[in-house]
């Protein structure tokens, strides 16, 4: 894989997000691992957010000669807004659209992109509307160097 998994998903959302589909609001798209402790924090009162993080990375060795591996990487796309349920719903639709648009890969970095689990993690007491989507990047028959 030429691009690292989070870099890849971040690129898809940065390039593919159509703000017309989310009330003219484009979320801040962040890789959680690049946020410095005590650094500039996410302010959900100013902007919606998509936070990305990798939760699993597996390699399967299906070949008799063990020269190739299938790689499966799970990335969580964590959508957050304080603009209400309707806005979260629009963000969900846009996330699904972008993931499905790349379902057959990009011809260079990965072969399949699967939309898997959805978990509602909204917290009414904080007016936080939050939904996480588990996405799987699949790379077929990657040659072991």
């Amino acid at each position, binding site marked *: 894989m030429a691009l690292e998994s989070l870099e890849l998903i971040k690129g898809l959302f940065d390039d593919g997000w159509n703000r017309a589909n989310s009330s003219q609001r484009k979320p801040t798209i962040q890789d959680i691992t690049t946020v410095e402790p005590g650094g500039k924090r996410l302010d959900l009162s100013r902007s919606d957010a998509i936070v990305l993080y990798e939760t699993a990375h597996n390699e399967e060795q299906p070949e008799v000669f063990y020269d190739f591996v299938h790689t499966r990487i799970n990335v*969580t796309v964590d959508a957050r807004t304080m603009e209400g349920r309707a806005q979260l719903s629009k963000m969900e639709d846009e996330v699904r659209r972008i993931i499905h648009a790349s379902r057959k890969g990009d011809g260079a970095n990965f072969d399949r992109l699967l939309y898997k689990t959805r978990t509602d993690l909204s*917290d009414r007491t904080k007016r936080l509307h939050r939904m996480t989507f588990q996405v799987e990047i699949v790379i077929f028959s990657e040659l072991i160097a």
Partner: protein
Amino acid sequence: MTKLWDEEAILKKLAVPLKAARENSIYSDEGRIFLVAAAFPNYEVDKEGNILLKNGSKMSSNHPDYESIIESAKKQAGNESSVGRSF
């Protein structure tokens, strides 16, 4: 051919302990990311799984945000963790 064991029944029996293992994985290296995400962006989480306040001290379990962070992390880990997925 008679099966020596019933795979479906085994999986059914394992469902509850596996879910608990996934939820509790937030305290391990494998699942700490769910705790980090639940605490983000207001708090940090250290390597031992302690939630840290802005001044760097550990958040106590009496803190008003503590329960909601743990609950949210466990719910997400229960659904998304890869622990036991190979069964």
